């Protein structure tokens, strides 16, 4: 999957540094000089554009008199008051909603994907192509496109007559199925050699144990990939928690931010505190699973 991206790197490292001039498309030179200075300046500019807004938001969240007109990179008067006020606004409850939805949704999605991918990649059966087509179709049916009927279904589950609205399940169950995760997982499982499996089968290993003790341990990198992309997908949900909620107390943190913003009694500091709280989990997941992330992005892209 990712072999294309790793080999050239290894080749390049072993080359003498004299050819470094031909290493990058623009021919950046590793030596000090105008070329290097220009590159450093551009890097600083780029850093300012992409990363400084985050520092400003974090500083504003810890600042006593934060207002949109006085944003600085370091809080002038450090305080935790915004987070305490956030607690009174029920922000912890929203965070809890978010974490339950993210945890449950991600766990469900990964489980579903592993099972489905195992069937689709390690076995051959009638109707397989059709199943794969349906899996890919789920990617084309995101919540936005089917939002209105989905909200009706959430209010009254066909055949079962249960209303999921107002429960966390209304968000967890729909994010459980995502063609992307199934697809990535099955692509990865396909590359495990058949001999391993045949040897295990001679030992009389059944399907369930085959999946969990033989195949899955070999798929750890892929689990990382679907973990991070699944988490981002769930954490990014906006329309789904909005239509799945009975009243604002069911909102997830990301949706609740707009409630805070429209509430004139809370200051911008509290809103910023909420934004920081909504950022931290995705930051942590990203930092822990970075390598998987790059692998996931590039595995799709370099295949074309």
């Amino acid at each position: 999957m990712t072999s294309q991206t790793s080999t050239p790197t290894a080749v390049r490292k072993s080359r003498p540094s004299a050819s470094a001039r031909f290493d990058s498309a623009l021919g950046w030179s590793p030596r000090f000089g105008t070329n290097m200075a220009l590159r450093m300046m551009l890097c600083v500019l780029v850093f300012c554009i992409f990363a400084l807004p985050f520092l400003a938001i974090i500083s504003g969240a810890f600042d006593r008199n934060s207002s949109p007109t006085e944003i600085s990179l370091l809080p002038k008067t450090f305080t935790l008051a915004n987070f305490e006020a956030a607690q009174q606004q029920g922000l912890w409850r929203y965070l809890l909603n978010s974490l339950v939805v993210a945890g449950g949704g991600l766990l469900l999605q990964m489980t579903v994907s592993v099972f489905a991918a195992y069937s689709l990649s390690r076995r051959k059966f009638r109707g397989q192509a059709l199943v794969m087509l349906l899996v890919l179709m789920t990617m084309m049916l995101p919540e936005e496109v089917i939002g209105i009927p989905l909200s009706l279904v959430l209010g009254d589950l066909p055949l079962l007559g249960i209303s999921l609205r107002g429960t966390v399940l209304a968000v967890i169950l729909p994010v459980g199925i995502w063609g992307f995760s199934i697809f990535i997982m099955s692509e990865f499982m396909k590359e495990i050699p058949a001999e391993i499996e045949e040897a295990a089968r001679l030992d009389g290993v059944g399907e369930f144990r085959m999946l969990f003790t033989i195949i899955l341990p070999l798929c750890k990198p892929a689990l990382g990939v679907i973990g991070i992309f699944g988490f981002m997908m769930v954490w990014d949900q906006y329309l789904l928690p909005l239509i799945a909620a009975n009243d604002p107390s069911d909102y997830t943190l990301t949706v609740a931010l707009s409630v805070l913003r429209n509430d004139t009694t809370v200051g911008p500091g509290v809103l910023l505190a909420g934004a920081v709280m909504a950022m931290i989990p995705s930051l942590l997941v990203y930092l822990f699973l970075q390598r998987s992330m790059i692998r996931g992005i590039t595995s799709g892209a370099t295949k074309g």
Partner: protein
Amino acid sequence: MTVTPTKPAETLNPAAGGKQAPSGRKRGNGKQLLAIWLFLVPAAVLGMYFKFIPMVEGIRLSLFKVQPFLGDVFVGFDNYVSVLTDARFMDALGHTVVLGLTQTLGALVVGFVLALLLEGQARSLWVLRTAIFLPVVTALAVVGEIWRILYFPTPDGPLNSILSSVGLGPLQFLNGTDTALWSIAVVGIWSGAPYNMVIILAGLTGVDRSLYESAGVDGATVWQRLRYITLPALRPSIVIVLTLAAIRSLRSFTEVYVLTGGGPAGSTEVWMTRMYSLGFQRNDIGVASAAAVLLLLVTLLLTVGTQLLARRKAQR
């Protein structure tokens, strides 16, 4: 997100293909087959309930005048006609296309420039790439809130004070009917470019370095090097980036909804926000469903079109 779906034919199991199992076990015995289908049950149930039933239901509703307590009345394609003749929907379509094009091309160009700037092995570059990737990881709703604050429209708002320091007047940003759509586009480019950067960086590692070297010997300029070596090598990555972005921008909702909610005066209303307000706020479910089906059709066409294009390219 970044998937290029393979042909269904490729999904056939390599374990069973190639050398046929000597024991004559080609499709597995009945017990195994049962296990296979059981493993598919969770995906099937969830897919049915939360994807396919809603899709079918949406298509059905789009043909009805939906009235709570009065019963639905079949109206044929009337809802589609109302969508296509609704001036606000047509405005929304225009905004969707403008926003989609600007964001897609902007994020591609910026992502390309970022990739060229940050290409390399140095650890400092790696750290910088990590930092720049933050906007992609952050939820769109949060990104929207951040930019609402940066765009604060008074002369002493964060961006306006930067603008005034270089001698540009204060802008209304999200509050001005002329500037709101472009302001949203900038947010889209900001949060989309780093993603493209990673795809393009991956593409760049595949470029044959010896080509650069021989071009250098031949006295090619940096521009020629980009034009004749780098860009052709990146074509597959760029095609992927473009289609993914096009499909995504068709259904862009969160950032518009968070940043402006379609205002001011409908100047940023896109297909999705119009659909949302029709369906959920004005309860005009039939017409909103028709709009959704149209969106689905366009997405389908785009996806299938790209697939065919990609497949033809692969055969060449």
